[in-house]
């Protein structure tokens, strides 16, 4: 039995192939790199777009724009209960089918606003006004183009590659084992935020991948919840790097004493500020030793999704690139359905406390990008507790091949 935790171990010793050198900033600022990310990452990887609970009944749908690929996808539950993903484009002359305030709702069919072409929930073309004036129109062949879709643990993923090279489960790999079995369906209540940030999407991913900033950025909001005398810099308790994805256990101070309102909230429900929770509610492979210093399990699923779990809740981040210097961020807190007003109050307090920390994070992210954008800085200097960031750029470069090709171009 471990009596005293070491917070001074170096995770690079487990992953020596990552190297310890400086990491180029170019992927965050280069237009060419952004173009290659579009082509080699976002156009051909599995991207999370929602939860099955978002569209519980036949006809329920939402639209997910993949702006970086100039794509828009309708995700809809059919009369047969199957969830499908359809390109949001009318087969007639390419008009967006669903747009404006209609991007989420319930439909019996989709009708194009331009000339009234009508499609069934499964994408089949149902009706064409003045159909007899078209030449050789075969409606059976003119359904909405289907997008590859797959579901894991209630998370809906799509892939813009018409023939993805691997299934979602193969794509998730070890991450599916690591995060599988968490009772996601038990947390149907979602408190979520959206903001458009003036930053490259990876600046946001990087900031949410380390706890090094907790002391400086979140000193007032999180306080002693994330550090203590034994771990004053909030080093990760554990780190696991997979071929594409990555995971860390974020430290929580078990001796943290919550403030007066947090104590009341804790009496009526469960909050994000609580430490030393009942770890036995977690699947066996998350915090396997049931350590009391576990705050949450941080997970980054390549390329743009983060899924963090802890007892009693999970929360996610997603980063949708709009341009190399603009990103749509979505932060979501998933909680149990409140059974009474006391629990609902606790949820309100809990997600607002996290929102307050996110307000600090987003401020810092824009400041980081503002600093990088001019290109003065060619490299990041990363510490061992920031190893997830190092891994992230390596995985991205494995897909993008920018530096590989550049070197090939300059060295005969």
């Amino acid at each position: 039995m471990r009596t005293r935790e070491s917070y001074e171990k170096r995770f690079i010793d487990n992953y020596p192939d990552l190297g310890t050198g400086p990491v180029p900033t170019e992927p965050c600022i280069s237009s060419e790199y952004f173009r290659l990310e579009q082509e080699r990452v976002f156009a051909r990887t599995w991207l999370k777009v929602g939860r099955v609970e978002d569209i519980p009944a036949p006809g329920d749908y939402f639209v997910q724009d993949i702006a970086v690929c100039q794509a828009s996808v309708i995700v809809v539950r059919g009369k047969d209960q199957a969830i499908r993903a359809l390109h949001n484009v009318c087969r007639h002359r390419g008009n967006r089918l669903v747009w404006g305030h209609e991007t989420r709702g319930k439909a019996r069919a989709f009708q194009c606003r331009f000339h009234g072409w009508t499609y069934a929930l499964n994408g089949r073309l149902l009706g064409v006004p003045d159909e007899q004036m078209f030449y050789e129109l075969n409606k059976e062949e003119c359904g909405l183009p289907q997008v590859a879709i797959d579901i894991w643990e209630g998370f809906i993923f799509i892939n813009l590659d018409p023939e993805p090279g691997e299934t979602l489960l193969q794509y998730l790999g070890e991450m599916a084992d690591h995060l599988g079995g968490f009772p996601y369906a038990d947390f149907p209540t979602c408190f979520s935020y959206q903001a458009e940030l003036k930053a490259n999407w990876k600046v946001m991913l990087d900031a949410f991948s380390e706890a090094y900033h907790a002391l400086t950025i979140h000193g007032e909001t999180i306080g002693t919840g994330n550090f203590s005398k034994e771990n004053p810099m909030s080093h990760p308790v554990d780190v696991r790097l997979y071929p594409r994805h990555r995971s860390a256990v974020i430290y929580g101070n078990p001796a943290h004493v919550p403030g007066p309102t947090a104590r009341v909230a804790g009496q009526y429900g469960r909050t994000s500020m609580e430490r030393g929770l009942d770890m036995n509610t977690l699947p066996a492979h998350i915090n396997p030793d049931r350590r009391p210093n576990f705050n949450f399990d941080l997970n980054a699923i390549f390329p743009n999704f983060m899924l963090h779990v802890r007892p009693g809740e999970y929360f996610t981040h997603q980063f949708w690139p709009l341009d190399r210097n603009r990103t749509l961020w979505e932060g979501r807190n998933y909680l149990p359905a409140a059974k009474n007003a006391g629990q609902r109050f606790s949820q309100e307090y809990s997600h607002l406390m996290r929102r307050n920390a996110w307000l600090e994070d987003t401020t810092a992210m824009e400041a980081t990008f503002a600093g990088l954008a001019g290109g003065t800085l060619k490299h990041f200097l990363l510490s061992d507790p920031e190893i997830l960031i190092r891994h992230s750029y390596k995985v991205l470069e494995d897909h993008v091949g920018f530096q590989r090709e550049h070197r090939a171009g300059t060295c005969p």
Partner: protein
Amino acid sequence: MSDAFPEGYSDLQPLADWALPTEAERSQRRRDSTLAELQAFYQTMMPRLPQLLDYLNGFALDDLPARERRLLHLSFAFAEISPFVEQYHRVVLPLNFDERRFTPMHDDPGNR
């Protein structure tokens, strides 16, 4: 609103204009306040909070009568201002993102 809240909660009447239905409105109200106003809200509400939640727990959450619903919204406003009184001692965070750019999607019931 002479009786915004249920019987027995008339002492909270001066706080009635905090009982706003959406997070966007409640956070805007907080930003438009002075720290002294937040402190006054906190001092009135904090001692009443457990009793108020016990009282509301006697009702079905999704079927609260209008005055009880207002009381719940008041408790949400308290959750909004409380950390600014207890921890930050100001009405906005020092590293403050423009909160109007930070959209609570859950305020729109269509997005739940």
